[in-house]
């Protein structure tokens, strides 16, 4: 690997050569995205040789990550020997498996399996909400009979969250449908809402499903969690396999507790370096999606390890895993550690057994990123991989800011936004909408003191800055929704948003321009009325 070549390839990658005849070359992706790994393939190719060489003499300098899209040429560089990983939890594993493979192995009761195999897995938790619940229930009844019972009434979690605070009759009816079903089936975890005029009058109501799942202790290391929502991958933050499925698959799981899934190969992302105080997990995942594109992880697992990952809180890990689907990823996953166990304490009484990737586990590719070299980012309209630095976009005038959703509406997201507003002391220049993900987040906004503020709460800081009053917790306008949804984009406006997708029409109007960003960047942008790097306020 020449010095010149290194300058053009800012991310260290090594790829596995496969025997697959149909290697799928995605012109956008920067890697050969084959969807199967032959178990007899040689593990590495490098430009130097075809053999395994763990002590390849690569200088361990940090290379600044280039902000440009990586070219379609793959530049392979052997990574330094991996740091020691915890031993496999199962003990019966004979060859190296990734943690995702181990979860599949346990869930399918197969001692060994390889990426590409289709296996029936036992599902630990199935989640559905008001948008996909009725359809899933319809299929369940049609296929198993009107009087059929779900496979386990304690493993189905039904969370109304998408179209709640609306006068749309069908949306309201859909909540009634899932209520009726929950009562009929004796569903243990149904987070009901009846009084739409006052969310606080509904003690069971939680809000955004992915945040609620975590807060209510339904996410556990080593388990299989499926949900009728693409951002179900959020739960991978807990070291479990979690992915989104459709109504028909969900109907099947409701009746059998099983799903037919293909074992995904794993892309490993090693993030090292101390997290700068102007960066958040949202910046990390935008960096990665921009690197590998919206289809770079299709049918693959994305595993996140490294010292930076270990330093992240659970909510930050959730943000990271939340957007793997935006890279086409099947699931995101972070090894469980002390942070995880501490979070789970008092949240769940169900025993769990974490799994960890073996030292000799086989990864499709490994990316190493030095986070200290990264900048606050945005994803420009109209794609989550349309990456640019916030600084590059400083001349983009905006009309509004939206802080909310499973991606950017958690307690820590609001604390982050408040931090920037506090540092500025000024008022926002554009309408700034605050949509807490859950009741608990809403409470935290009104009760938790913001560090360095002399005891002020987020809500006080938001009010002083002229933001809109935090609204009822739900998915809100992240996906547009019925026309009367709070903060929906109904005109061709420019919005900086802490949400997860910015395809045309995502938040309502087809010509709305959505810049995806971290809560820091969103708050900074609100203060100036332009897309703004939060370092302008945080340093």
């Amino acid at each position, binding site marked *: 690997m020449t010095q010149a070549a290194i300058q053009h390839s800012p991310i260290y990658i090594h790829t596995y050569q496969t025997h*697959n*005849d*149909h290697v*799928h070359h*995605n012109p*956008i992706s920067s890697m050969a995205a*084959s*969807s*199967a790994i*032959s*178990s007899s393939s040689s593990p590495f190719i490098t430009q130097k040789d075809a053999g395994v060489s763990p002590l390849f003499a690569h200088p361990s300098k940090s290379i600044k990550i280039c902000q440009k899209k990586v070219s379609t040429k793959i530049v392979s560089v052997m990574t330094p020997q991996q740091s020691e990983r915890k031993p496999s939890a199962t003990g019966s594993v004979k060859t190296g498996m990734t943690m995702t493979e181990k979860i599949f192995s346990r869930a399918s009761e197969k001692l060994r*399996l390889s*990426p*590409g*195999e*289709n296996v*029936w897995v036992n599902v630990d938790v199935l989640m559905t909400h008001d*948008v*996909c619940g*009725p*359809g899933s*229930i*319809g*299929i369940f*009844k*049609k*296929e*198993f*009979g*009107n009087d059929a019972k779900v496979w386990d009434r304690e493993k189905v979690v039904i969370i109304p969250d998408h*179209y709640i605070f609306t006068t749309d009759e*069908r949306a309201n009816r859909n909540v009634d449908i899932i209520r009726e079903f929950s009562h009929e089936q004796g569903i243990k975890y149904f987070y009901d809402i009846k009084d739409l005029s006052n969310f606080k009058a509904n003690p069971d109501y939680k809000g955004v499903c992915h945040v609620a799942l975590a807060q209510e202790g339904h996410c556990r290391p080593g388990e299989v969690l499926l949900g*009728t*929502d*693409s951002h179900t991958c959020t739960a991978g933050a807990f070291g479990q396999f979690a992915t*989104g*499925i*459709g*109504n*028909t*698959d969900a109907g*099947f799981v409701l*009746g*059998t507790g099983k799903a*037919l899934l293909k074992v995904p190969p794993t892309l490993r992302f090693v993030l090292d370096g101390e997290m700068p105080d102007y960066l958040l997990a949202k910046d990390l995942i935008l960096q990665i999606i921009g690197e590998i594109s*919206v*289809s770079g992880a*299709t049918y693959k697992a994305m595993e996140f390890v490294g010292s930076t990952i270990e330093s992240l809180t659970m909510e930050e890990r959730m943000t990271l895993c939340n957007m793997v*689907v935006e890279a*086409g990823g*099947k699931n995101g996953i972070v090894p469980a550690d002390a942070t995880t166990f501490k979070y789970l304490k008092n949240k769940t009484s169900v025993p769990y057994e974490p799994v960890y990737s073996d030292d000799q586990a086989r990864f499709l590719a490994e990316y190493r990123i030095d986070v200290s070299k990264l900048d606050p980012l945005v994803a420009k309209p109209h*794609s989550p991989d349309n990456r640019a630095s916030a600084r590059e976009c400083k001349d983009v005038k905006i009309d509004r800011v939206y802080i909310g959703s499973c991606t950017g509406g958690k307690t820590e997201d609001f604390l982050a936004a408040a931090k920037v507003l506090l540092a500025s002391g000024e008022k926002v220049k554009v309408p700034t909408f605050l949509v807490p993900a859950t009741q608990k987040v809403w409470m935290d906004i009104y009760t938790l003191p913001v560090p360095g503020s002399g005891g002020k709460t987020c809500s006080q800081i938001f009010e002083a800055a002229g933001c809109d009053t935090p609204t009822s917790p739900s998915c809100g306008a992240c*996906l*547009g*929704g019925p*026309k009367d949804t709070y903060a929906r984009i109904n005109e061709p406006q420019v919005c900086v948003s802490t949400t997860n*997708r910015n*395809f045309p*029409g*995502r938040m309502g109007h087809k010509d709305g321009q959505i810049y995806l960003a971290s809560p820091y960047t969103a708050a900074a942008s609100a203060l100036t009325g332009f897309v703004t790097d939060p370092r302008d306020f945080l340093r």
Partner: protein
Amino acid sequence: MSTAASLANTTTFSSSLSRRQQAPASISTFNVFNSTAQRSFKPLISQSIVVPNPTVSRHASIVAQATFDSSPSGSATSFHGACYVVRDNIDTDQIIPAEYLTLVPSKPDEYKKLGSYALIGLPESYETRFVEPGEYQSKYSIIIAGDNFGCGSSREHAPVALGAAGVAAVVAESYARIFFRNSVATGEIYPLESEVRVCDECKTGDVVTIELEKSLLINHTTGKEYTLKPIGDAGPVIEAGGIFAYARKSGMIAALAT
């Protein structure tokens, strides 16, 4: 064009699809399909020689030799009609915007409405509308797409809306996984992959035929032919008639009581 549309929608035409599931005898509120409904995903009966490698992938070379099934529901061996061409990364919000997700696909009248909104989220740069205002079905029964078709949400409403609008098959360069999975699970559309960027060589309105057994896409308007990739792992599930039928076949779940 209207001829093509009617051809795609009648049960008599050899390339049409009929409902893969028969409605159970007991009609409930959630009963899906009208017994006179036109289309469903027919099980493709094929002699498959599966590569004896446990790590078979979607792109592995499964040699499928279709034999003709003369069962009452017939079997889909080809699709024919006018095509509608879209570009890369057509996400589920463009296929069926979120505001229409209050429609429940398992309710027949709402299923029909979903069809009227199929691809309504496409930007104005797409000058030809997929479904004319006031219509429930499209005159285009085949969609030709670029990369990563169906990315975004897991909403099953996406392939359902396309199917409800009369789409028989999609030929894309590649798919997002949940959309592909949902297409196979619902049987609403047959998801095929091309070897090359057919979206660059076909135009909306071209008349095309898809020959499944030959894995061929024929554009009659341009006279060009394109090889399609074998269906891969989804084959056995599609063959059986969807995930439920597949599971019943293997004895995993009980036969549907009728």
